[in-house]
């Protein structure tokens, strides 16, 4: 007798939504009709802006990688290859929307208007965090994988209680986007976040960049089926999008954000992309993946794809591309200069902000530390006859 379970489908085909194919030509994705109004928003200006943002992000990222190699940063998590997913989705955000990034969403930070050099102190070791989250509604990077997905849902629950969902007022309704990766999709916190978001219809867009590798572990180890299939089991509408097609990422994110802001609840987006670089500068991808694979993905690069599209459409000339490259060079120089200028304050600052209100134990530890350090100063003064 045949095993009845073998007849159950585990993996339905998932259609990956695209606006551009790998060569940068417009294409109609099967089942992509619902996104058509958002694709229609992709003006030449917007696509040029996305191109520029991708090139600048890559220049920043390359500079940061160099700075790590030069010893200026302790570590760097490159965004190389994921610019399409990040820039496309970030352009779909409104100012009042709130972003919970993972730790390589440099492109999203850039589109939010953040000075990218503010990301460097975290990696230089001069301070944790590094930026005011309220300035651009861009939260701190999250190092504990997937932990921020719950924060995103909680923030969304707050927006609901504020009454800023479903009013129909463009200046009022808000949504939250949570960025994470294929590895994080296995974390309990991400799964609990999906449960809570579905249960509360929280205005949250889960934007998964499936970059195929969680450090050295392939995405197939996280899930035998497309991650886009994860959402539906939680009762969350899900969609797969070509993460190296920023136009498609924009359209899908716009649709999801509109749904969230209007009170329609969460959406799960799998953006299929590729981590072209190492996980971090401490990683060595040659130990676990083939260069042929990297070459295959290089052919789908989001920047060259959009460039070909702009050229084919005749909406960007050499002057435009040269200007973008010039801006990218300037950003790289600025990044290098700013990085070298970031310095830690006096060691006593490590006692700051452990608590918001005074805590006697921290105060006592601080006092002890200062006395200890001052003791060395006295000893130095004694040794040099007080001349130092």
């Amino acid at each position, binding site marked *: 007798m045949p095993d009845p379970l073998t007849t159950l489908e585990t993996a339905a085909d998932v259609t990956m939504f695209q606006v551009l194919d790998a060569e940068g030509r417009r294409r109609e994705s099967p089942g992509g009709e619902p996104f058509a109004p958002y694709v229609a928003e992709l003006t030449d200006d917007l696509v040029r802006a996305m191109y520029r943002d991708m090139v600048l992000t890559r220049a920043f990222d390359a500079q940061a990688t160099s700075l790590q190699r030069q010893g200026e940063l302790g570590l760097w998590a490159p965004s190389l290859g994921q610019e399409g997913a990040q820039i496309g989705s970030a352009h779909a955000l409104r100012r009042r929307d709130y972003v919970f990034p993972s730790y390589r969403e440099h492109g999203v930070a850039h589109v939010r208007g953040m000075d990218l050099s503010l990301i460097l102190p975290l990696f230089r070791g001069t301070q944790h965090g590094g930026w005011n989250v309220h300035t651009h509604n861009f939260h701190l990077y999250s190092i504990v994988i997937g932990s921020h997905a*719950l924060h995103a849902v909680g923030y969304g629950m707050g927006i609901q209680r504020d009454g800023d969902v479903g009013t129909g007022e463009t200046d009022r309704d808000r949504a939250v986007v949570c960025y994470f990766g294929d590895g994080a999709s296995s974390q309990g916190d991400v799964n609990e*976040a999906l449960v809570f978001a579905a*249960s509360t219809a929280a205005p949250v867009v889960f934007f998964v960049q499936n970059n195929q590798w969680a450090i050295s572990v392939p995405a197939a180890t996280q899930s035998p089926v497309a991650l886009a299939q994860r959402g539906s089991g939680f009762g969350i509408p899900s969609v797969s999008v070509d993460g190296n097609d920023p136009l498609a990422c924009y359209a899908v994110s716009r649709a999801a954000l509109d749904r969230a802001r209007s009170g329609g609840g969460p959406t799960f987006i799998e953006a299929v992309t590729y981590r072209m670089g190492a996980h971090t500068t401490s990683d060595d991808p040659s130990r676990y993946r083939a260069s042929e694979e990297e070459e295959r993905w290089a052919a789908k690069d989001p920047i060259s794809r959009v460039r070909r599209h702009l050229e084919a459409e005749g909406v960007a000339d050499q002057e435009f591309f040269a200007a973008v490259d010039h801006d990218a060079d300037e950003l790289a120089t600025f990044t290098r200069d700013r990085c070298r200028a970031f310095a830690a304050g006096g060691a006593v600052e490590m006692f700051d902000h*452990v608590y918001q209100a005074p805590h006697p134990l921290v105060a006592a530890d601080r006092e002890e530390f200062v006395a200890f350090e001052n003791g060395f100063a006295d000893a130095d003064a004694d040794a040099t006859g007080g001349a130092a």
Partner: protein
Amino acid sequence: MSAVATPLARAINAGLRAAMDRDDSVLLMGEDIGPLGGVFRVTDGLQETFGEDRVVDTPLAESGIVGTAIGLAFAGYRPVCEIQFEGFVFPAFDQITTQLAKLSYRSQGGLSVPVVVRMPYGGGIGAIEHHSESPEAYFAHTAGLRVVSPATAADGYTMIQQAIASPDPVIFLEPKSRYWDKAEVDEATAPDLSEAGLTTGLHAARTVRRGGDVTVAGYGPTVKTMLAAAEVAAGEGTELEVIDLRSISPLDVDTVAASVERTGRLVVVHEAPVFFGPGAELAARITERCFYHLEAPVLRVGGYHTPYPASKHEEHYLPGLDRVLDAVDRTLTY
């Protein structure tokens, strides 16, 4: 209105109600806290008054409760999470220790995360496993958290309001074996919710019985035990000074040190395992501060280095009257 005899669980309920009346941003989250009122009825009637948006029956996932509470705090709310039993807090341990505790520090003080995590703790009620533990040392060991435990109904009413008013995350440990113990609670008097009020209230130890022979310090469920021991000891001519620490982080060492400077002897009593427990920290600090005043080593009475045993053994595991008195005798005859 004068004070009324109220059980601890009811007093915490009244404190939550007062905090929610005072501040619209306060909301409660947890499992079965709505129509049921929580398994110990601490949230009884609150959803009826404040609605489902402010008394939220969550999905059954502790990390989810604390993690979403953190997000709500980012959005300007003051969530109070109920963990149904202390033995179930560990799924939320990562959110509490790596996220909740560190967000002020990671943001250079830019993010205040005023989340309270309430949980019943301790043994003595004949429960099955995972329902009788005392995990306070894990939390006290983590910078960024405040850890407190009321021992009486009056403190339950006041301290929960002060914990909610704190700009820092607070682990609020409720001694479940004392939930039904009544004491006079004055609900007509609003507690001092200022920063100074929290320092001298929520985080200050209190001497609950004066005595000159041995200092006995503890918190939560053991305060009642210590007072009972003091009563017996007094009958035998030994006067115990009993200190209810009330706060484990910060720890009010000053109050204990001032007492030990008079008595020269200290016994610390808690249900948590003695090994690396809060008593070890207090013993070390008192030894540093009061070395020349001590007539005997600081002794600790608490849980053994075993998992919490089956409930038929718990009266032997818990630091009961006889074990406290035995430690008192040992410090006096050292």
